[in-house]
């Protein structure tokens, strides 16, 4: 299907100062395209959570926004370290975040469940030592 917009944002490990800038730009971009209301809020929440996850947990990665005629897609791909037990990571309250993340109000073990709750489709693939890819889809009203 024809891709209307594709934007990629590099996200650095432990860059707490910039964390959220990609999500703010994603939100602005979608708003300019006329995406609003519930879909915009769900994309914004999920993208902020996934961006923070890249900062807190990954060795660095990239967040990509794709806009298709019928849906918005967010793809987060990192270069490790990978998640040993995905079902554990998906549980509310389970977290391996460090004290720095917790002191900023994150690392409560809500990130992945929040993404899943907000996205219409959610897929997570992870290989320890290789990396994690999360793909989320948000249906656009026709």
């Amino acid at each position, binding site marked *: 299907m024809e891709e209307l917009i594709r934007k990629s944002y590099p996200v650095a490990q432990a860059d707490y*100062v910039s*964390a*959220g800038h990609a*999500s*703010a730009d994603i*939100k602005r971009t979608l708003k300019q395209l006329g995406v609003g209301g519930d879909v915009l*809020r769900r994309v*914004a*929440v999920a993208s*902020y*959570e996934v961006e923070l996850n890249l900062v807190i947990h990954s060795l660095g990665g990239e967040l990509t926004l794709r806009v298709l005629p019928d849906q918005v897609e967010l793809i987060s791909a990192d270069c490790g370290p990978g998640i040993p037990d995905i079902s554990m990571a998906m549980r509310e309250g389970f977290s391996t975040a460090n004290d720095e993340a917790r002191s*900023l*109000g*994150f*690392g*409560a*073990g*809500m*990130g992945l*469940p*929040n993404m899943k*709750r907000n996205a219409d489709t959610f897929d997570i693939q992870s290989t320890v030592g290789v990396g994690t890819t999360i793909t989320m889809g948000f249906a656009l009203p026709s």
Partner: protein
Amino acid sequence: MTIQDMIRILNARVLLGEDKLDTPVYTACCSDLMSDVLAFVDEKTVLITGLTNPHVVRTSEMLDLKCLVFVRGKVPTQDILDSADEQGLVVITTKLTAFSACGMLYQEGLRGVPVPVEWGAEDK
């Protein structure tokens, strides 16, 4: 309830948004955990928090929140206030603790964000 009513109840000081104090407030959420805020809150909610880092404002931006209340007299740094100002947020601060602030607002009729409170089968 409006933001102006909250200011009276909490004896709060306005840091930003003096011209928007007649904005209605429908529900409130009190948390220092931004992930919990991201999970449950919508744009009609006022956020009461003791956390004053930039992520409070970024979380508010993602959710289109209208008002932030800082407790125990906390005032964020100017750069954080500047970014809240860009978003048009009303920011107020009260000397009360989070517990007391919530209690006084609840007493005056403000309620929390609706979340399921019954235990479900998945909790067993």
